[in-house]
């Protein structure tokens, strides 16, 4: 309850500024979404509603290319998010339940630093790394890079959830004859589950959406959805790109919403 005096809505221009910000944020997305339904190859002139560009994505000239790219993207995202979430779950357990070990702050910094490093730097570094060990570039190199940069994203919701779980639950479990491992699997893991699912979904979206790092480490001829879209856009923007983008957008919104809802859910019922 903000007091009247500090009510932010009372500042002059508040409404206008808010609307402006929202427009800048969402107008481009809205235009893409709307024009993906345009019954015309033009991307500026509205000529009526149609599904043709969505059909084009699935059965058109470029459909094979996009299908393969989408398949790559989803396989990589599912595996990368899964592996990253498992690693993040164990890291969080060690960090939060491991007692106060030396270098704990340093470890936390190391885990979350990649979130703040410019992605292009990570991309270049990853590329140099793969080159220096002579790793062949292809789907596998993309996958490894994705696992690496997904870890901090799945770590954060998991660690946040875990921080809220008192350790008396595990003590109670051990008091009731559960071994450390049973206390982990039967008590801690179920209590952490919302954080784990949320971390998985976040990592999944981040992987699905990644362009910069993928573009650096992918081999010639291997495409994910973002790199395929970029490649297509270079030859001119066609409405089928808008249709793909709109589908990706819808998918992301669903995933992010799910992630949010799950992380908010608790065991009160």
């Amino acid at each position, binding site marked *: 309850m903000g007091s009247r005096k500090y009510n932010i809505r009372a500042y002059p221009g508040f409404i206008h500024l808010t609307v402006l910000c929202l427009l800048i944020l969402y107008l481009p997305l809205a235009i893409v979404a709307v024009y993906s339904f345009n019954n015309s190859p033009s991307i500026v002139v509205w000529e009526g509603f149609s599904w043709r560009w969505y059909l084009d994505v699935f059965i058109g000239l470029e459909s094979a290319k996009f299908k393969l790219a989408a398949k790559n993207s989803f396989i990589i995202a599912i595996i990368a998010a899964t592996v990253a979430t498992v690693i993040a779950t164990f890291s969080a357990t060690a960090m939060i339940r491991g007692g106060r070990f030396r270098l704990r702050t340093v470890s936390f910094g190391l885990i979350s630093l990649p979130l703040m490093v410019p992605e292009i730097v990570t991309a270049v570094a990853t590329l140099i790394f793969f080159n220096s060990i002579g790793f062949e570039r292809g789907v596998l190199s993309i996958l490894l890079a994705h696992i690496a940069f997904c870890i901090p994203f799945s770590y954060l919701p998991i660690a946040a959830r875990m921080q809220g779980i008192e350790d008396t639950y595990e003590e109670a479990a051990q*008091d009731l004859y559960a071994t450390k491992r049973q206390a982990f699997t039967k008590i801690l893991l179920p209590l952490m589950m919302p954080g784990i699912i949320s971390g998985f979904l976040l990592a999944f979206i981040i992987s699905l959406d990644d362009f910069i790092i993928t573009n650096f480490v992918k081999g010639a001829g291997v495409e994910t959805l973002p790199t395929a879209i970029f490649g297509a856009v270079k030859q001119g923007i066609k409405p089928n790109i808008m249709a793909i983008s709109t589908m990706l957008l819808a998918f992301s919104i669903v995933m992010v919403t799910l992630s949010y809802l799950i992380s908010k859910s608790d065991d009160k019922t």
Partner: protein
Amino acid sequence: MPNKPAIIVKDAVKRYGDFVALKKINLSIQDNEFFTLLGPSGCGKTTLLRMIAGFEDVTEGEIFLFGEEIDKLPPHKRPVNTVFQNYALFPHMNVRENVSFGLEMLGQSKSDAMRCAEEMLELVRLSQFASRKPAQLSGGQQQRVALARALAPQPKVLLLDEPLSALDLKLRKAMQLELKHLQRETGITFIFVTHDQEEALTMSDRIAVMSDGEIQQLGEARDIYERPRNTFVADFIGDTNLLAVKVESISGSMVQCLLKGGQRLKIAVNDKIKIGDSLHVSIRPERLFVSDVDDSRGTLRGTVKDNIFIGTDINSLLILDSGDEFRVRASNSDRGNKRIYAPGKQVFVTVEEGAARLLVD
């Protein structure tokens, strides 16, 4: 030789870095006993309990459970269970699953464990809530689930860390009775932690009064109340008047003590004392009698300052001629009696025989 003690704590020391949380604790708790660790917050009660449960290692010393050394065992290998202060009920399991958890971990089949859980829930009168989640229960109900959960595996010793402190007064009183009853019924040794001296007196067979990581006195409730060993115990348990005195003369079993204002008091000898010692004497307020006539046995003179009505009793506040404040408690049923005097009135206070107790430290 009778049964082996349920718990023996031998020279147990607990240090956190430089900080000494427990200094050489020695304890022997009998089978079937309702034993209470009583002391102010921070005196080390929880630490001692957690050492018995296995959540804290013992810096020095040993702990035995029915003769077997347990201080190196992990918590899940110790046949003792804990009722945690915040209950720590598993939020993702329903009441029945919570209660059967320990039995399942011990290897009982799910159906056996469930059946036993139902019996435990009946014992604490919660059968109709078996399918609820802990968050859907009231504080008192959660408390009883925690109790049922800890009792279900039939531990050799049950540890209870201030289990009633989160409940309101009325519920707390009811649970005190219920706990005591459960202990009798199950025959399990209870080690109960509280900072509430009244609760300790009500429930315990024996009490260990602790402060600053040490046991100050160990004994039956009545013993501790009537024969406190030092000023800490006298002050912490119940209400008392502590007066500074000087030993003037000793004759046989009686000591003549001099109060600040020059008045004298004869008290039974109880410790190694010598003439000239400065000591304290503790006198419980309910063991004093006030009169407005000096019956020559009347040993202390003072003035009534105030009378406070507290329901069952009336507390009179006196100022002795020595300048000390003095509290006298009279049962409310004595109102018709002459023992309540108006403020300002000069009165004489008689100490019931054997009620004054000399304390060395």
